[in-house]
């Protein structure tokens, strides 16, 4: 089941959210970065993952049963002005594998953990993807 299928539950989830204690809205407050991120992305479709600049077949493969799946990554571009210093994201095929597994797990489990990739668990400024 892809992530897209979860949109059928949005109305029910929004109704439950309205019953939560009222939090601090950012509409008129600080944290303009978060507001800008939401405004740029919310309901804008999947153009982020489709705006591919490069497709490079990876040199490693993973065996799945008797079949060997090629793994590739793409480079997607953020909407203009979303971040001041970050314009691109390297989209690994693992991201979609993790997403698929998380969607499946959400039907029966309370928690899903993604780990292993160098840089996970670090501040963004210390990420291995930063230019040094």
């Amino acid at each position, binding site marked *: 089941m892809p992530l897209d299928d979860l949109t059928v539950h949005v109305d029910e989830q929004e109704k439950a959210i309205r019953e939560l204690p009222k939090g601090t809205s950012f509409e008129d407050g600080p944290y303009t970065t978060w507001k800008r991120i939401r405004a740029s*992305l*919310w309901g804008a479709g999947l153009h982020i993952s489709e705006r591919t600049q490069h497709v490079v077949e990876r040199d490693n493969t993973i065996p799945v049963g008797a079949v060997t799946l090629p793994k590739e990554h793409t480079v997607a571009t953020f909407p203009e002005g979303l971040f001041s210093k970050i314009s691109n994201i390297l989209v690994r095929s693992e991201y979609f594998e993790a997403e698929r597994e998380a969607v499946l797990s959400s039907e029966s489990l309370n928690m899903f953990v993604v780990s292993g990739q160098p840089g996970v668990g670090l501040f963004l400024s210390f990420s291995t993807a930063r230019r040094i």
Partner: protein
Amino acid sequence: MRRLALGLPTVYQSTSEYALLFNGSGVTKLERLGDRMSYLAVEKLKNRIWALIDLNPALPKPSPLFAYQSPFFVVNAMSPHSEHSDLVTTASPRMFYMTPWSISEVLQAYVDLTSRGPQHSHFL
């Protein structure tokens, strides 16, 4: 980001002080992260709202609201270091390990960075 692009209500936390709720109404700061009773409305949902928890040195473990038997479906991104072993043993989550960076990915990032100049100094 894909969840926001799809218009899916999503909680995100990267610091112990608060979490952010992105939904159709905008962005809201959630502060009662130790009080589960305040979140009974979302606990009743059959299809739970996802909470994406970015564990890092400023958030070494999930807040109580996003720990064991959370009213949300919790997705933790964390390093495989031993300080997180308690989380794994108590919550028994499903684990997904990503492979290390391949040489082609490293080269891709290098090429992209060098072609964009110093004003674009980061690449996620």
